C-alpha cells in the first residue's frame, strides 16, 4: 500500500519557538509540574488537546470573513442550523459558546439531587457539570475497555448488562438521561459500535430514559464503524453518522473537535419542551438563541467544518496518522492503549512506571518527563484528573493512569510525529529516573487544571 498523504496542503504556517532541555526543566518547575500552567510559547509540540486546536481550511476562513454579526436572526445561524439538522436529523438546534455550556444547560434542566446520569464514560467537564447539579455520573464501560493492552474493535461500548442491573437497582425514574460518548475520550478514543448503540437505545426505550450522544468525535467513530463493523463497509460515513444519531433523542457537541472549529458547540434534540427550557437558560448564560454566545463567523466555520469532516479521504488520513504513531511506540515496547484510538495516543503509565504508586500520579510525572525531554505537552488522564478522596482523606485512584497525546487536526506533519515518537522512546529508555509527585495545592473541582505539584524525593 502506498503512503497515505494528507488530502490537503498548507496555506498558512505558525512558527514554533525552540528551547533547550535546561530551560524546559526550569519552566516545568515554575509551572509546579502542571503542564496547564505552561505558556504555549514554551511548548514545541502541543498535544495537550485536540480541542479547538485544529487548522481551519481556507473555506472555513472564507466563512469567517462572511460571518453575519447581527445579534438576532443572522443567516450564519440558519446555515449552521441546517447543516446540523441534515447530519443529525434533529430539528431543534441550539448554539453554545462551547460543548461544556451545552452540557451545563442540559444538566441544569435534567439534573438535581438523587439523580444518576449513566454513560459508557463521562469526560471530566461533563462529569463536573453533572455533579455541580447534585446528581451523580455513572460510568458503565464494557470490560475490555478497561484493559489498555488488550486490542478489541469497540472498546468504547457500554456494558448493557450493567446498565440493566443499574436501572433495576436505582429505578428508571431516577435516571433522567443516558449519554453515549463517541468516541470514548477518557477511555482511549475508542469507538462505540452501532450494535451497542442500538442495544442501549432499546434498554432506554423500555425504561423511558432519553438517550443523548456526546458527539464531539462522531465522524471518527463513524469511520471506525465503517472499517470494523459488519454491514457498514459499503455505507458512506455520512449515512453511518445519520444512523448513529437516529438512535438518539438528542446530542451535545463541542465543535472544537470534529468540526475543526477553534470555538463553539451546540445542543440538538427532538423534544420541543426540553428545547424551550434549554433556550430559557441559554439566554441567561450564553446569548440569544440565534447566536448562543458565538460570533456569526464562528457559526459559519462550524457549518463548513461539519461538512469537511465527513470526507472519507480525510478520515482515512486522520485515523491512519494516529495508528502510525501508536505502531511506532508499540514496536519500541512502550505500553500504549490498543488498538489505536481516533484522536490520540494513550501511554499506560501504570505499566510503564510500576515504581510510582497511583497516589504519586505516575501519568502526571510521565507527562512532565516528556515535556522536559522534548518540549512535548501532553495531558494526564488518571488519578489527578479523576481521583477522589475517601472520608479518611486518602486517594481513591482512577481506574487507569494514562498520558494522552492528543493530535490536533491538520496541524502537525509526519516529521513532527516522528520527533514525538523519538522523544517518547528516549524517555521510555530512562524511565527508572522518573520520580512520583505530590500535590501541594488544589481546587475542590476540576483540580487538574490548576493543581500545583512537586516531585517526591
Amino acid at each position: 500500500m502506498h503512503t497515505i498523504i494528507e488530502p490537503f496542503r498548507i496555506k498558512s504556517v505558525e512558527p514554533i519557538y525552540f528551547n533547550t532541555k535546561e530551560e524546559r526543566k526550569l519552566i516545568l518547575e515554575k509551572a509546579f509540574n502542571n503542564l496547564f500552567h505552561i505558556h504555549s510559547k514554551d511548548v514545541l509540540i502541543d498535544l495537550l488537546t485536540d480541542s479547538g486546536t485544529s487548522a481551519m481550511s481556507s473555506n472555513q476562513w472564507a466563512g469567517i470573513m462572511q460571518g453575519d454579526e447581527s445579534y438576532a436572526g443572522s443567516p450564519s445561524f440558519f446555515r449552521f442550523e441546517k447543516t446540523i439538522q441534515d447530519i443529525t436529523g434533529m430539528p431543534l438546534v441550539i448554539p453554545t459558546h462551547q460543548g461544556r455550556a451545552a452540557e451545563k444547560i442540559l444538566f441544569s434542566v435534567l439534573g438535581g439531587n438523587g439523580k444518576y446520569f449513566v454513560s459508557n464514560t463521562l469526560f471530566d467537564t461533563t462529569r463536573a457539570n453533572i455533579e455541580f447539579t447534585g446528581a451523580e455520573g455513572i460510568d458503565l464501560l464494557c470490560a475490555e475497555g478497561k484493559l489498555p493492552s488488550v486490542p478489541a474493535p469497540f472498546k468504547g461500548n457500554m456494558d448493557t448488562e450493567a446498565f440493566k442491573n443499574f436501572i433495576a437497582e436505582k429505578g428508571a425514574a431516577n435516571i433522567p438521561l443516558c449519554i453515549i460518548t463517541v468516541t470514548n475520550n477518557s477511555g482511549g478514543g475508542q469507538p462505540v459500535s452501532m450494535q451497542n448503540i442500538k442495544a442501549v437505545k432499546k434498554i432506554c426505550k423500555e425504561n423511558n430514559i432519553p438517550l443523548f450522544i456526546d458527539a464531539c468525535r462522531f465522524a471518527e467513530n463513524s469511520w471506525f464503524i465503517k472499517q470494523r463493523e459488519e454491514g457498514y463497509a459499503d455505507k458512506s460515513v455520512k449515512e453511518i453518522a445519520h444512523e448513529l444519531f437516529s438512535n438518539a433523542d438528542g446530542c451535545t457537541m463541542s465543535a472544537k473537535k470534529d468540526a475543526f472549529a477553534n470555538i463553539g458547540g451546540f445542543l440538538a434534540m427532538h423534544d420541543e419542551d426540553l428545547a424551550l427550557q434549554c433556550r430559557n437558560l441559554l439566554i441567561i448564560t450564553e446569548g440569544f438563541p440565534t447566536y448562543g454566545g458565538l460570533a456569526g463567523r464562528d457559526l459559519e466555520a462550524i457549518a463548513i467544518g461539519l461538512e469537511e469532516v465527513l470526507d472519507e479521504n480525510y478520515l482515512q488520513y486522520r485515523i491512519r496518522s494516529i495508528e502510525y504513531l501508536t505502531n511506532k511506540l508499540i514496536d519500541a515496547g512502550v505500553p500504549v492503549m490498543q488498538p489505536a484510538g481516533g484522536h490520540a495516543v494513550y501511554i499506560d503509565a501504570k505499566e510503564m512506571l510500576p515504581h510510582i504508586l497511583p497516589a504519586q500520579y505516575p501519568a502526571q510525572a510521565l507527562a512532565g518527563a516528556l515535556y522536559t525531554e522534548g518540549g512535548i505537552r501532553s495531558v494526564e488522564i488518571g488519578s489527578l484528573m479523576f481521583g477522589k478522596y475517601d472520608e479518611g482523606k486518602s486517594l481513591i485512584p482512577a481506574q487507569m493512569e494514562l498520558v494522552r497525546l492528543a493530535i490536533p487536526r491538520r496541524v502537525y506533519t509526519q516529521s513532527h510525529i516522528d520527533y514525538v515518537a523519538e522523544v517518547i522512546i528516549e524517555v521510555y529508555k530512562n524511565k527508572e529516573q522518573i520520580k512520583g509527585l505530590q500535590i501541594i495545592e488544589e481546587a475542590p473541582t476540576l483540580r487538574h487544571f490548576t493543581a500545583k505539584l512537586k516531585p517526591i524525593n
Partner: protein
Amino acid sequence: MKMVELLKMTTAAQRKKAMKEAGFNTFLLKSEDVYIDLLTDSGTAAMSDRQWAGMMLGDESYAGSKNYYHLEEVVKDVYGYKYLIPTHQGRGAENILSKILIKKGDIIPGNMYFTTTRLHQELAGGKFEDIIIDEAHDPENEFDFKGNVDLDKLDRLVKKHGAAKIPYVSIATSVNMAGGQPISMKNLRELRAYCKKHKIRIIHDMTRVAENAYFIQQKEKGYEKKPVKEIVKEINSYTDGATMSAKKDALVNIGGFLALNEWDVFEEARNMVVVYEGLHTYGGLAGRDMEAMAIGIGESVCDDHIRARVGQVIYLGNKMMEYGIPIVKPIGGHGIFVDAKKFLSHIPQGNYPAQTLAAEIYLDSGVRTMERGVVSAGRKANGENYYPKLELVRFTIPRRVYTQAHMDVIAESAARVYEQRNKIKGLKMVYEPKYLRFFQAKFEKL
C-alpha cells in the same frame, strides 16, 4: 472602508410579511430582511484592519495562549485592573461574579437596572435596588450626568439593611437603560468615599466606559484637556472590579471579561470559570478573539475614534429633533432613545407603545430598532409587570459600520412614521417566555 458587507433591499410587502412572522418582535426578524440594523451596538462593530490581522495571529492553544497574556497586559495597562478572567461574553462574567459575591437576601444597589445584570443578581438570591438620580427617569430633563448615583438613596438602603447585606454597589458607565447617560467623575469620587466609609465594594459594568469618559471630557470641569485614556483609568480606579462585554466599546464581535483587584475573589472566579466558560486562560474564547479584543481596547480609548463615534450619534439625534421627534435628552453615547410614550401618546403602556413603534419603523424602511420599555422590564417576583417610567425605542448605532447617509435614511424614516402616528394601533402579547421575555415574546395587532 477597507471591506464592505452587501445589504439587501426589501419591499413594503416583504417587510409586512416578515414582521408578521416575527410576531411583531424585532428580535425575531431574520437579519437578511433588515436594511439598517440598529437592534444593538453589541457585537456588531466593524473591526479594524489591525484587529483582523490580530485574528490571524490567534494562538489556539488550550492553556497559556499568548493572546491571553497580551490581553491581560492590555487590561492592566489601559483599564488598571489587576486580575483578568476572560469570558465568552459579558453575561458570562456577570454570572460568575453574582454567584461568588451575592448571598440570599442581599441587596445590590445600582444606577438603574440592566436586563441581564439584574437577572443574574436575582438568580443568585439578591435584590436589585435603583439608586440613580430622579432626573434619569425624566426623558426631557437635560442634566449632563443623568447616570449619577443619588447618595441619599444609597444611604437610606444602607441604614435600612445594614452595609453587611450589600455585597457591592453595581455601577454602570454610560447607563444603557437611561439612554446611554454618563456618570460624572465627581459623583464617582463621592460614591467611592461613601463606600469606603461603609466598606462596600464598587463593581463596574464597564461595557461603555470610553463613551462615558468622552462625556466627562466634554462636559466636566477640569477634564477638558485630559485624554480619554486617562479619564478611563481614573474612573476604574474608583472601583474594585468590573464586568465587561467587550462587544461594545472594545470593538469586537464576541468576548468579555471579569476584572478584579481582590486576589481571593479572583481565585474563586478562576475555579468557577472552568465549569461555565473554559479554562481561565481562554474563558471560552478562541485565541484570535482575545487578540482582537486586546487590539480593540487600545483603539477604543483613542480620542479621535470616540469623537467620531459619539459625534455620529449626536448627528442622528439632532436630525430627529429637527423633525420634532421626542427623544431622550441629552443625547447619549451609543444610540438615540425615542420616547414612545410621547410619540404614541394615544397607546396605553399596557399595549406596548415602544414595541409597537419599533415594529412600525421596520415596516416603513427596514430599519430594525429595539424596545426598551414595559416588555424589557419583565415581571416582579410576585408576577406583576414592572411598569418602568421610561418607555423607549432604542436606535443603537453599531460602531464604525454605518455612514452619515445611513443616518439620514434612519431620521427620515422616523419622521415619516411620526407624521402618521395617530393611525398606529397598539399590540397584545400572545406568547411570553419565563426569563428575559423581550427576546422571544410574540405579539398581535389589536
